[in-house]
C-alpha cells in the first residue's frame, strides 16, 4: 500500500542520511523518489556527495566510493528491518585501508542487532571477527572447514 511504502522509504532514507557521513567521514547523501503521479510507481534515486566533492552523477563515483555507498544503503535497510543474519561476500575487496577500517567499525556497532557472516581476503577485516572458519582444499577439489580459535 502507498502509506506503508512511504513510511518505509522515509525511515530507510533517514538511516541512510545518518550512515553515509559516518562511513565516508563526511559528505552527505539521500534517497529521492523519482517523479511519478502515483507513489506506487515511483522509483528510488540515490544522491551521493563524498566529502569535498561536487554533487554529480552516481556513475562518476569511483569503484570504492560506489561500494561504500551501496554498503551504507544495505545497512540502512538492515537497521530499519533486521534479518536473522547478514551475509557479505568480499564486499571489502574494492576498499582502501581507511575505508576497511570504517566499514568494520560500523559492523561492530551493529552486532547487538544482528549476526554477520563475512567472507574476506583482507587482513584488517579478519581482525574484527569473533569466530573464524578457514575453508581448505587439502584434498584438491574437496572443501573442508577448519575452525580457528581467535583467542589465541
Amino acid at each position, binding site marked *: 500500500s502507498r502509506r506503508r511504502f512511504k513510511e518505509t522509504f522515509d525511515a530507510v532514507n533517514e538511516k541512510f542520511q545518518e550512515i553515509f557521513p559516518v562511513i565516508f567521514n563526511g559528505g552527505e547523501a539521500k534517497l529521492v523518489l523519482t517523479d511519478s503521479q502515483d507513489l506506487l510507481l515511483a522509483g528510488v534515486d540515490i544522491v551521493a556527495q563524498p566529502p569535498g566533492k561536487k554533487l554529480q552523477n552516481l556513475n562518476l563515483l569511483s569503484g570504492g566510493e560506489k561500494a561504500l555507498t551501496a554498503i551504507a544503503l544495505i545497512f540502512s*535497510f538492515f537497521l530499519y528491518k533486521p534479518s536473522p543474519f547478514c*551475509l557479505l561476500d*568480499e564486499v571489502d575487496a574494492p576498499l582502501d585501508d581507511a575505508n576497511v577500517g570504517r566499514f568494520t567499525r560500523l559492523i561492530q556497532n551493529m552486532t547487538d542487532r544482528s*549476526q554477520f*557472516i563475512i567472507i574476506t581476503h583482507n587482513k584488517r577485516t579478519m581482525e574484527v*571477527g569473533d569466530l573464524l572458519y578457514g575453508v581448505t*582444499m587439502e*584434498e584438491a577439489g574437496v*572443501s573442508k572447514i577448519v575452525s580457528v580459535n581467535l583467542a589465541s
Partner: protein
Amino acid sequence: MRLKRLKLNGFKSFCDETVLDFEQNGITLVVGPNGCGKSNVVDAIRWVLGEQSPSFLRGQAMGDVIFNGSATRKPVGRSEVTILFDNVNGTAPEKYRDYEEIAVTRRLYRSGESEYLINKIPCRLMDIREPVADTGAAGRSYSIVEQGRVDELITASPAERRIYMEEAA
C-alpha cells in the same frame, strides 16, 4: 530468530558432511584461498532458503549443486543442506512462533527429485521459504550480498531499487 548452524553434504565442493556453527551475537569470518569453497557456502544458504534459478547459483542446471567429483573422489548422488535457526527470542513468523528451533532442509537427487523438510517433516518448496519470508533474507533481498555484486544497488535502475524498498516494507 538467529542463525545457529549450517550443515552441507554433497553440496558443490562440500563432498563430505560439513557443519558450521555461527556466532550468535557477533561476527563469523569465513576465509581461505581462491577456489576453496567460500562462495559455495553462500550458494548453499541461498539454495536451502528456496532459490530456484541455477544461474543465480552460478550453474547451468540445478544438478550443478550436487558434488560432481574431483581428482580423487567420484560424483555423489545427492546434495543436502540444512539451515538451523534459533527462535529463543520468538521473532519467527506466526506459524513457527512456538518452536524453539527451526531446521529447514533441502535435498536434490541426481534423478532430479527434490525433498523439502521443516524440522524433519516433509513439506513443499513454498513452505521452506516461509521462516525468513518477512525478513531481509527472503528472496534476493538485501541481507545476502554475493561476491562482485555489492554495487548492484548503485548500478540498478530507480525502478529496480524500488523492489528492494518493497522487500523491506
